[in-house]
C-alpha cells in the first residue's frame, strides 16, 4: 500500500504533459453508510480527465457544525491557519419565530460552535429553526473568476474543477472581487500554498490531488455525518447522482447565472 502510493506519487510528479489518468469508477462510500470501501488504487498516469465530471452535494439537514471539514481542509491543503483565509467554512443560521434571520461563522467554523461565548447572543431568542451550512468553492460551470482573470491564470479543468496557476497569478485580486461566494483569498505574506507560492490567489480545488487518485476531498473524508458528498456526474453509481435523483436540491445565488456544481439539500430561504 505504502509502496504503491509512493510509486504513483513519484510517477505523477515525474510525468508532465498528459493529464491522462484513470478511468475506473470513483467509489467513495457515501459518508452516511461506511468508510470501509478501499478507494481504488488509481495511477495518475491512467487517469483520463475527460471521463469524469465532478459535483458536490451538501446536506444541510445533517451538518452538526463540528468544523472538522474546515480543519481537515487546512491540514490537507496548507491553507493559512487563521479563519480569515479559508477554502471552506461553516455558517450557522438562526431563524426566529418571527422569521428574522441571523447568520454567523465564528472562526470560520473551524473550532466548532460549542464554546459558550459563541452562543451567548442567541440566549433569550424565540428560535424557530437553526442549522449549519458548510460552504466551499462552487466550481461554477460559468465561473466569473475565470472570466475576469486578466492573464489566464485561473481556468476550468475538463473534469470540472477551477484551478489557479499560482506560478502565473499576478495577484491582482480581480477574481476575489468577482466571486459572488467569497470562496477566494490572497495567500498572505508568510504563508505558502502547497505549490510553494505566496501573495497569489488561492481557493478550494475539491482536493484535486486526491480526487484524481481516487480519494475523496479531505473535507468529505473528515465529515462524520455524511453532510458533504463528493461524486462524479459521469458515474451513474456515484453518490452525488444518487442524491440528485432523490432529493430536492438548490444552488447558491442561482440568479447570477454562475451554475454552481455544489448542490444543497434542505436550504432555507435567506441562506446567502
Amino acid at each position, binding site marked *: 500500500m505504502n509502496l504503491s502510493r509512493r510509486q504513483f506519487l513519484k510517477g505523477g510528479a515525474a510525468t508532465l504533459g498528459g493529464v491522462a489518468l484513470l478511468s475506473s469508477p470513483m467509489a467513495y462510500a457515501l459518508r452516511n453508510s461506511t468508510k470501509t470501501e478501499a478507494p481504488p488504487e488509481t495511477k495518475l498516469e491512467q487517469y483520463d480527465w475527460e471521463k469524469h465530471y465532478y459535483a458536490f452535494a451538501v446536506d444541510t439537514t445533517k451538518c452538526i457544525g463540528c468544523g472538522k471539514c474546515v480543519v481537515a481542509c487546512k491540514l490537507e491543503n496548507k491553507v493559512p491557519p487563521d*479563519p*480569515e*483565509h*479559508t477554502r471552506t*467554512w461553516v*455558517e450557522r443560521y438562526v431563524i426566529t419565530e418571527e422569521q*428574522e*434571520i*441571523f*447568520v*454567523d*461563522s465564528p472562526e*470560520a467554523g473551524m473550532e466548532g460552535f460549542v464554546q459558550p461565548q459563541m452562543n451567548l447572543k442567541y440566549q433569550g431568542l424565540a428560535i424557530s429553526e437553526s442549522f449549519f451550512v458548510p*460552504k466551499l468553492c462552487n466550481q461554477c460551470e460559468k465561473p*466569473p473568476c475565470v*472570466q*475576469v*482573470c*486578466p*492573464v*489566464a*491564470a485561473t481556468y476550468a479543468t475538463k473534469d470540472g474543477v477551477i484551478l489557479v496557476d499560482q506560478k*502565473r*497569478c*499576478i*495577484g*491582482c*485580486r*480581480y477574481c*476575489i*472581487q*468577482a*466571486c*459572488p*461566494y*467569497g*470562496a*477566494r*483569498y*490572497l*495567500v*498572505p505574506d508568510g504563508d505558502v500554498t502547497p505549490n510553494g507560492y*505566496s*501573495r*497569489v*490567489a488561492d481557493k478550494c480545488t475539491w482536493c484535486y490531488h486526491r480526487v484524481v487518485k481516487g480519494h475523496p476531498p479531505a473535507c468529505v473524508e473528515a465529515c462524520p455525518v455524511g453532510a458533504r458528498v463528493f461524486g462524479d456526474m459521469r458515474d451513474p453509481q456515484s453518490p452525488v447522482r444518487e442524491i440528485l435523483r432523490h432529493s430536492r436540491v438548490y444552488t447558491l445565488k442561482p440568479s*447570477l*447565472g454562475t451554475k454552481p456544481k455544489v448542490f444543497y439539500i434542505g436550504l432555507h430561504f*435567506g441562506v*446567502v
Partner: protein
Amino acid sequence: MNPGFAYPNELETQWTLFIVLYPYITGLVAGAFIVSSLYHVFDIKALKPVARMSLITALAFLLVAPLTLLLHLGQPLRGIYIFITPQFRSAMAGFGFIWMFYLILVLAETWLVFRRDIVAYVKSTQGIKKAFYSALALGVYDLSERSLYIDKKLIKILAAAGIPSAALLHGYVGFIFGAIKANPWWSSPLMPLIFLLSAIVSGIALLIVIYVVISKIRKQPVDHACVDTMVQWLAGFLVVDLAFEGLEVISMLYESEDSWEIISLLITQKLRVSFLMVQLGFGSLLPLIVLLAAHSVRLRAGTRTAISFGGAFMILMGVLAMRWNVVIGGQLFSKSLAGLLSYTPPLMGQEGVLAAASFLALPLAILAALFYVLPPWKEVVEGEAQPAIAARQRRRFG
C-alpha cells in the same frame, strides 16, 4: 436579515488606496486630453493657452497611471503577463494594451505639437542639452512649410482619435467595476459612463487649477477667457455626470432589489461623509451652484477666476471621493448582502496614506520636469516668438 455577517475571506479588504488612485489618475489623463482635443479638433480658440499644457499634463499622469496598479499586485514582477498572455474575456486584460495605445497616441501628438520647439532648442542649446533635444527630434531638423502642414494635419487626426481613445481608456476602467455581477454597488451599465464623465470633469478641473497656479508662479496674467471657457465645459459635463450618478442610486432605491437593504446602510452609514457630503455635496452640487452663480452675475474677471479656481479644486476633491466611494465602498459590505465591513487606510506602509499621497505628487513632479524640458507656454518659432497670452487679451469679456 440581521446585518453583521460577512464571508470569512471578506474580512481582508482586497483593493485599497492605490486602486482608488488608479481610476483617479487615469481619469485626469482622459479629461486633460479632452481639453487639448477641444482646441485641436474643435478649434475652440479660447483654449489655446492650455492646449499644449493639457497634452503635457495628460502625458505626466499617464506615465504614473499603471504604477499604482503594478505596485498593488501581489506579484508586481509578473505584471508583464498582462501583455504576454492577455485573457480578453477579462475586463482587465485590455488595460495594458489600451494604456500602451493611448501612451503612443499622446506621445506622438505631443511630439508633433512640440516638434518646432524641439528643433529650435536643438539650435539654441549646447552640449548635453543639445544632444537630448536632438534625440527628441529623432535627428530630423526639417521645418519646411510642407512638413509643418503635414504635422498639423496629423495632429488633428491624432487629437480626433484621442477623443474615443480617452473615452475607451476611462470608460473601460468603469467597465472593470461595472461588469462585476457579484457586487451590486459596482454592477451597473452606467458605471463606464459615470467614470468617463467624472474623468472629463476632473481633467478639466485639474487644468484650471494647474493653469492658474502656473500663471501665478510665472507671474503672468491669467487669460480669464480661457478659464471661463474651461468652466463652461466643466459645468456642462458636471451636470450630466451628476445626472447619471443620481440616476444610478435613485434607480437602485426605486427598484429596491434584495441588495438595496445593505446598500442603503452602506450609503447612510459607511459612506455618509465621503459619498453624501464630499462627493455629492462639497464636491459636486456646491461647486456647481457656485460656478453657475459666479458666471451669471457681473463680477471682476479676477474674482470670477478665483471662484473658478476654488470650485475646480472642490470638484477635484469630489471626484477623488467618488473613486473612494466606488472602489472602497464596494468592499465595505459583504457579498452575502448580510453585513457591513470596515476599512481604514494605515498612515504608513506600502498602501498607506503617505504612500498614496506621494503617488498623487509624482505626476506633478513629472509634470514639472516636462514643463522644464518643453515649456508649453513658450512658442519658440524663429522670428515670431511671442507669449501666447498677448494675442488673447482682446478676447477678454466681462
